[in-house]
């Protein structure tokens, strides 16, 4: 099937199998930040933005992206770096494999709610599993970023 979409700002036309997952499609198109961690839509590693909304690319068919704007971390480097440096300052990136999905969802959170409480952060990111950090350092990093924006 032929699909037309915008991937990280670039218009793409592609012929795809009807059962191709968006996750495999974006990886085939060089967006290697997008990771697979499970087959059951549990881990959040494959999170991408479709028209600005975070979705799981492991459970979205590539054909569903037809006519839409898809963004991966490759296309949002500067927006991510703004707060990612604070997470790096905590050492909370650890193995890094969950980072892209978690960072993408954090971008979506901060666009939607620029001044979230700790509970709102936890709730929004609940679908992003991490086995290394125990989550606390990631939260400290986001909190430090929010404080820095407020000049605290």
């Amino acid at each position: 099937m032929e699909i037309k979409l915008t991937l990280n700002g670039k218009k793409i036309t592609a012929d795809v199998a009807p059962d191709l997952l968006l996750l495999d499609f974006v990886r085939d198109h060089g967006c290697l930040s997008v990771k697979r961690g499970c087959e059951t839509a549990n881990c959040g590693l494959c999170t991408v933005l479709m028209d600005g909304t975070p979705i799981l690319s492991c459970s979205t068919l590539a054909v569903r992206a037809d006519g839409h704007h898809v963004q991966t971390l490759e296309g949002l480097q500067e927006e991510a770096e703004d707060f990612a440096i604070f997470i790096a300052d905590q050492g909370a990136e650890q193995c890094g494999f969950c980072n892209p999905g978690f960072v993408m969802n954090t971008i979506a959170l901060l666009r939607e709610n620029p001044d979230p409480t700790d509970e709102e952060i936890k709730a929004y990111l609940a679908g992003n599993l991490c086995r290394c950090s125990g989550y606390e350092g990631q939260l400290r990093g986001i909190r430090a970023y929010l404080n820095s924006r407020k000049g605290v």
Partner: protein
Amino acid sequence: MSMEKKFVNSGIRKKDAMQLLLGKPLYTCDVTRKDALVVKLLRSPHAHALIESIDTSIAEKVEGIAAIYTYKDVPQKRFTLAGQTSPEPSPWDRLILDRRVRYVGDGVAIVAGETEKAVDMALRRIKVKYQVLEPVLDIHSALDNPVLVHPEEDWVSMLPVGADNKRNLVAHEVTSDGDVEAVMKDCEVTFQRTYHTKSCQQAMMETFRTYTEMDAYGRLHVVSSTQIVFHLRRIIANALDIPKSKVRVEKPRIGGGFGAKQTSVAEVYPAFVTWKTGRPARMVFSRKECQTSGCPRHEMEMTVRIGAMKNGHIRAIDLYTLSNTGAYSEHGPTTVGLSGHKSIPMYTGGLEAFRFGYDVVYTNMQAAGAYRGYGATQGIFAVETAVNELAEQLGLDPVKVREMNLLKEGMVMPAYYGEKANACALDRCLARASEIFGWAEKYPVRDMGNGKVRSAGVAMAMQGSCISALDVGSATVRLQEDGTYTLSIGAADMGTGCDTILAQIMADNMGCDVEDIAVFGADTDTSPYDSGSYASSTTYVTGMAVEKACTELKANLCVIGAEMLGCKAEEVEFTGEAVMKKDGSGEVSLADIANKTTIFNNTNVQVTASHSSPVSPPPYMVGMVEIELDKETGSVEVLDYKAVVDCGTPINPNLARIQAEGGIVQGIGMALSEDVTYDEKGRIMENSFFQYKIPTRLDMGRLQVEFEASYEPTGPSGAKSIGEVVINTPSPAIAHAVYRATGVWHRTLPITPEKVLMTKPEEA
């Protein structure tokens, strides 16, 4: 002079942090060829069977299939997948594919094809006729069961670990000190309890992944997500029955390990495909395969006998552990030892005698492996819960009972190979944890009046810092021609930050900036030999190798500098930025020395040093938990977890803290939600993240970690280890808190809401 310590004990960013956070392509599947053959295994649906016939002819006709292999095609020489120093304590009981399948998920055929679709279709078209055999699915009946998991004659145990395949026995030992029975008889209180822990999954986010290709020299080049490049080279050579020199193993960034990648779970299959076909190949485990054909924690059942006085003085501990290695032996003989050797010594202060015995048995269940804590986690759950039970039975405060009995600095530990505790702040950890947690206020049970109860629990833990007198760490340090350095290691940074930590140690030794050190690891062709990243050893062992290498490099730089200054090497010293004459009459800058090394130079500016330690100094930890238990639903919420850790000198306090926090949350998963259960046919029920529930952000309350420093004289800048000890306190601390809230001791993990709700105090 700029040689003062600047980077040790400093929470600097990991050198690769931003690359990881910004999603750069750094992992096995990102850095290898896209056109590699897809490799998958046909897996056994039976827990125990013999393959009567296997027909691959139709499957081979599927378009895009490059190769299909069965037990008839593989070398008939047994080996082990355990990443251990050779000769491995784990008996050699594997073939790449065997005619006998020993658990649900065991390999039956290897299929390699151009696309995943072709491979999946071929997998469905292989016809196998099995002679289904009775499986051994219960650890209690495994020993001397008429059904043998490994009846084969070519099974071999390389070391005297007490193994006997004709008894389903993988290891057996009894050690003791003092007369346990006599001391028990003299005690005012003795009691015995049995505890049971499950085969929890490491659940690292990156599943097992391996890529293989033939290199320009006709050698097998393996790129894999592994903690053990050198052991892996040997394992692959053994499995394929080819010389080790024909194999090169490299690891890119690793998406978590936790010990899982200390076993060669995925590598031998694509390696075999590439060796046979000459084509690049890749194997990516699904999460389901990780859950059902991985290498989880050893299930253990531990019986603890304690002899004590009514005032809480613990005089004797007698521990027997029955460990389930599953269908294969990986790490079976070694994990079990830690269940006693890393639990009993914490009570050295009071103990007059101990005994520790164990049996490790084969069953037709998923083969176990290495998982953070490596047996200590299981043993500490048993012994710490038993001590809490003792204290509660005697009406004593469990913290006071520990204060009375615990190990103190300077003591010799009979239950820990007679080692002396040269650096031990366990007492200070307990005092500090009590203070920041508010033990005195939180220990009494508080009914919240809304069906919820708040209560508290406590546990201590220890681990090691390497495998003593065995592990080898090495470092190659080199001065580059611009005055910066490279550091090459064979240890594997699996996210823990060892690349950065070792660079911090090197920076302080060379008097340079961490930014001036490029770290590279690990590759069996170019890295110096290292046992690998396991047994909490990298900072402690490889860190010392870095120190040694730096000392030698500095001496060589002085030789070159003295030559340039026209004096003797004894007359100069290295300042980090220059070599200067001690009398101040001249100096030559590091930049000039660096340049000089490229012109008519006969002195090495690349130095490799190795290090092994005769001892394995334990890190210590105390954890205290406050829970809120809902009496209506049985659910347990962790409100507050306070931990105080003695890891010697924390080289990077930020990374040490994250290790502790991550380990605690993994431990909470083990305590409350991560279960592994089998149906009557031997199938694992928790085969995805739907059923196998690892903690999410919402499952965590407040978490606070502090450090009580000690100084370990045999470690780099006084450091011990941190990686494993941190997973050991949650299970016993939470079981304690649940008892306080309900009056029930849950001696089998995990403590699920169902169990809390359904078990009444009188049934416990």
